[in-house]
């Protein structure tokens, strides 16, 4: 790509921290945020989850939400991450009308709808929440807290939503539609998808073990993260530095099954290959891969195949950070992109926690803390339905 796309700021909230500093500390000290269900009211207490360690009330207080203003958990987490991202990139309120906002979510306001559904059907109670059920309204609720953005839209591709939001933002900048776009995603845990995933029998009642021979499923997580994408010209004019560069990205469809990944990981392979091609970077220059690595028997095998097809004998260090946060579904693409940025900035490889036994035909992940100078990293996000995306993030040239 001729004109680099800079990442000039980012913000994140997940089970391992309410901001970047807490997140970095957890990653460096191998401290997982997955544990017993505390906030979500559900019968299924048997599943470990990665909840954000704040109640809706606590998040409302943190963001100074007025008493008469309604919110949903996904929007609240989005606001917290967006707040940090905007401050990180030194974006002031006057700049907002010239900035785009692209968010990824699948549940939207479902945390409220699932509680009030019978009221929606049978009576007039809680009807003010009807208008905030859908994905787009959730993005608008998040964005409105900070001002009137130039454009707002919402992607919903399940677990690759946030990654695809990042890709759209990059394409918009390359077309000259905007100089600055804030991109990412947010998703809270809901009874709807906890039960949905359970009905598919892909949840583990123990902490997940991606790429391990004994892996038995995923743990759900929640969180939000946003990146500020910006042209070099705009950054120089504003006097802000790049934290990282988005050098490549790819999106391909597995076109195999609505929930399972193909045995040879075709979609994943094509997405990663496209990212490398766009960045004009050879496979041997990749220093680390942040895997999608959910810990399901299916994903980890499929992803391993795709990676081996692309890198041959020389698979770079690779790990899944989902044992830290759980699978944050729609937000995972941007949350894990922030982990990649932190890894680039601080020179370390995030550990694939809970791993002890190599799986058959799989990759062996990073399982011990390692300090390493990183230049180019790949970040994978694969969604249900074979919506596979990959981001290539690089350290800025000094």
């Amino acid at each position, binding site marked *: 790509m001729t004109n680099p796309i800079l990442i000039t700021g980012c913000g994140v909230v997940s089970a391992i921290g309410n901001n970047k500093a807490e997140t970095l500390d957890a990653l460096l000290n191998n401290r997982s945020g997955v544990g017993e269900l505390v906030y979500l009211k*559900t*019968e*299924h207490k048997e599943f470990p989850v990665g909840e954000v360690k704040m109640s809706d009330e606590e998040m409302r207080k943190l963001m100074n939400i007025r008493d008469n203003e309604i919110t949903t958990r996904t929007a609240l987490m989005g606001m917290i991450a967006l707040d940090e991202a905007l401050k990180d990139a030194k974006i002031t309120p006057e700049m907002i009308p010239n900035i785009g906002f692209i968010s990824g979510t*699948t549940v*939207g306001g479902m945390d409220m*709808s*699932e509680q009030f*559904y*019978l009221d*929606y*059907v049978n009576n*007039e109670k809680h*009807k003010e929440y*009807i*208008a905030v059920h*859908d*994905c*787009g309204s959730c*993005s*608008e609720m998040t964005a409105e807290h900070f001002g*009137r953005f*130039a*454009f*707002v*839209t*919402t*992607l*919903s*591709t*399940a677990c690759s939503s946030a990654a*695809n939001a990042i890709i*759209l933002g990059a*394409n918009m900048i*390359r*077309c000259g*539609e905007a100089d600055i776009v804030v991109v990412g995603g947010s998703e809270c845990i809901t*009874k*709807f*998808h906890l*039960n*949905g*995933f359970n*009905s*598919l*029998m892909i949840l583990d009642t123990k902490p997940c073990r991606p790429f391990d021979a004994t892996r038995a499923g995923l743990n759900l997580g929640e969180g939000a993260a946003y990146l500020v994408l910006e042209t070099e010209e705009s950054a120089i004019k504003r006097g802000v530095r790049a934290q990282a560069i988005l050098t490549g990205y790819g*999106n*391909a*469809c*597995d*076109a195999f*099954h*609505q*929930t399972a990944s193909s045995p040879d990981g*075709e*979609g994943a392979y094509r997405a990663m290959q496209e990212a490398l091609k766009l960045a004009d970077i050879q496979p041997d220059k990749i220093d680390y891969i942040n895997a999608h690595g959910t810990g399901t028997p299916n994903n980890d095998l499929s992803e391993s195949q795709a990676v081996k097809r692309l890198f041959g004998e020389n698979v770079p260090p690779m790990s899944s950070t989902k044992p830290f946060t759980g699978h944050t579904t729609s937000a995972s693409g941007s949350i894990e992109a922030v982990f990649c940025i932190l890894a680039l900035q601080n020179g370390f490889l995030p550990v694939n926690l809970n791993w002890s036994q190599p799986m058959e035909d799989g990759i062996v992940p990073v399982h011990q803390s390692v300090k390493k100078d990183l230049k180019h990293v790949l970040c994978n996000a694969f*969604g*249900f*339905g*074979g*919506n596979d995306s990959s981001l290539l993030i690089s350290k800025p040239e000094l």
Partner: protein
Amino acid sequence: MMKKDIYVLSAKQISVQQPLCEDWMTQPVDYQTPFNRSIDPSFKDYISPIEARRMGMILKRAIATSKEAIKASGLDTVDAIITGTGYGCIENTEFFLEALSKDGEQMLSPTYFMQSTHNTISSLVAIQTKNHGYNVTYAHKGISFDSALQDAVLQMRLGKINSALVGGHDELTPTFYNILKKGGMMGQDDEMCGEAAVSVVLGTKSDNCLCKLVNFKMLYKPSMDKLKAIAADFKADYILTGISGNHKGDEAYLKETKELFGDAKLLKYKHIFGESFTSSGIGVYVAAQCLKAGKIPAHLFVNPQEATDKKPSNILIFNHSDGNNYSLTLLEA
């Protein structure tokens, strides 16, 4: 940034009007009830009976319109499949929510869940057409289709793709119609609500196309000044508006089009197709078919006395979804 020539090669629909054809131009189905479901074709040419049995209507319609649109485009395959859906797969979401609310958290159906996620539509079309290309779903209320269209246009301008299947799919059950009406999101005043499945194929070559896609823009809560500045690039003889029977929305359409486009002739389509989150996709379909046919049916004119047999050379589709999200799509014969 070099502007690439982009053409609408084909556009197919299943809606409250006769499906997969343009009968609405001469014999529109007239509706007196405020909520109507689509007229469905037989799906046996598109989906095997075994698959169809477990497939919701929104998915069947997406497959049928997609396959028809690809066939009509003359292309063997498309480089990208980009879909917009405002509310996603409502029927399956409803089944799952009902079961969750009434029966609790045991014994829930995986099929309902699997087919309830918004992106299941786009991915199923890819599975059915064996397409590994770029595949993305937008879910942003009344600009979901528009967002999908924007993505296709951006990527074609960047030269990343030369063709795209752009879809807009929404369904509406009686239960959800009542919920959305209660929530003030649709069905206000004289508005007729319907369902819409639209598949449009875009390409870079003009052979056998329906029309040219000249310009596209999406805005969030723009000021009138901002709109005026943008409108300068979207001058057209005919403006296809989303006038629907919602009094507040209709008044806004009349006021804005007058201020932005002066005396351009106003058209409407929701009086026969109904309001849905995907109706902007129907708008693009309607405009494209009119340009190809070389005629705008008299019943589309907001002011009947303006109806003319003159061949239209351009139509602007002007969408101001919920008064906040604007899109302008300029098509040329």
